[in-house]
């Protein structure tokens, strides 16, 4: 699992490199936490799921935990590029009601304006 974090206009863009499952959530969480520790001033996040072709309940639970942590710090989190299969998991678990989902990273960044 490779997580690439960058900053655009003070907003973090987190690119998740592969499927978000029970086997990979720990790596995702660790890499994101270490980047958050290095960039404590960043409040808002866009999670780019373009390369996430599958997500199980552990992956979904991790995203919810990340959202909770970010909102506790006074920030917000949006999701971009949600692929077909994870979208189906989002739909049945009602997760689409929890997250703001955008088709592209640019649209998600605009959503913070």
């Amino acid at each position: 699992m490779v997580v690439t974090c960058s900053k655009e206009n003070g907003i973090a863009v987190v690119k998740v490199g592969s499927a978000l499952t029970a086997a990979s959530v720990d790596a995702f969480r660790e890499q994101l936490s270490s980047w958050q520790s290095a960039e404590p001033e960043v409040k808002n996040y866009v999670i780019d799921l373009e390369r996430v072709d599958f997500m199980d309940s552990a992956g979904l639970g991790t995203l919810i935990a990340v959202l909770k942590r970010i909102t506790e710090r006074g920030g917000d989190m949006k999701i971009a590029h949600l692929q077909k299969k994870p979208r189906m998991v989002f739909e049945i678990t009602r997760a689409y009601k929890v997250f703001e989902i955008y088709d592209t990273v640019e649209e998600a960044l605009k959503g913070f304006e």
Partner: protein
Amino acid sequence: MKAVFYTADVLSWVDDLGGVPWPLLPIANRPLLDYWLETCADLNIGHVQVILGEGADQVEKYIGSGTRWGVEIQYSFARATERPLDYLKATSDRWQEGLLFISGPFFLRRMAGYDPVAFQSMDACCNGCLGQAQFLFGKNGDEVKKLLDETPKTECGLEKIHVEPYVIGGMSAYFDLNMNMVAGEFSRYVTAGFSDTDGSSVGYNVLTPPSAILNPPVIIGNDCRVCAMSTVGPNAVVADHVIVDSSTTLSNCLILCDTYIGQNLEIDHKIVAGNRLISPEDGTVVEIDDSWVVARNRPHMRTEDLLRYVVLWFMALALALVQLVPFLLLYPLVRLSRIGEYRRELFHDPRVGYVKLPVFYKTENRRSLVYSLFRMGSLDRFPWLLLALRGRLFVCGQPPMRHPQDDETIRQLPRYYPAVFSYADYCKDSDLLSDSLWYAHIRSLFEDVKILIKSLLHRFFRAGR
């Protein structure tokens, strides 16, 4: 007249629906073949030849000898080198009395003006695509021969009798057909006497607590369980042996048999087949490994089962040690007062087929302190506890199934855990099959301990009443 059903085509998209061969694809909870065979009954066809391909054993098991439909069935296997039309032409002398031929996932969709009587006066016709006949009907040898010599047309005489030749060409067509059925078309396929007041059909043994809502139109199969605060419908087709866990909503969806739908889910515009979530639009399949989201209603859990068995064995040992002295003291008194006795009865056994178990019966209908004490301590189950310690019974699970009374129930059970204690010990409205299916899916150490404690407490407080 004779009928030939060609079921040897290979349809790859059906594989995503969990291993059911396409001739048995459920449409409004009835296999496609069922509709074909009912057409034979409508046309007074007595002989049907089924040409088998993949899934032959399941098809043969379902149709059997054909007595359910009043037809005589003959089975044969398709030859790889021979197309169905070639076979019909080569055996044309067999169709002198007429022929009904259906091939591939072809559904005779009855439209609003359909009348079964019109079927009998239908003209000879043939329907097909890409030069292959999917439906052919001729009342005598000449009509059949003429049709076989022609190129199959895409339009045929079926429309004249208000039947649409519907080819189930993919996931989308399959889903749409089921949705049309639940929206009201299914009542065109049931016999006279069926009452369709709200466009719904609910099968046997469907458990719904007061807080569960069924929003018509829905079609629900047999032996299903809809848990608290769940909503089924509108436009939901739920097959047999489906468990819908609490606070879940099902609408515009098709749930195939033996599926568990987890808690707090929203299934809309989807097909669920076991642990597979399918988008009907493009056939995208997501296999979900988490058995608490959606799952096949019969998971294999060898490690958990072993752990459960070991922990419960020690609990049974402790309980047996506690019961030993009271049983040795009270049972002779029960026998002396002639208020109860053990009788050996035949039960199903998962390992050896059948086993005789001692069942305690109260033989006299009078109050007795000895009997009340005997029941309060669940001492009537002491011999079963000893059998559990010997590995012949589970401590908690499903009630042992009697032979032959419960033969039909056991045939429908994916897993059988005959046990000393079960839901039936503390739940007055317990249904044997529904509860057994529920236990087979939900079984866990927590559930077993819950059953054990509730059973012992219920029997203690209800003894003698």
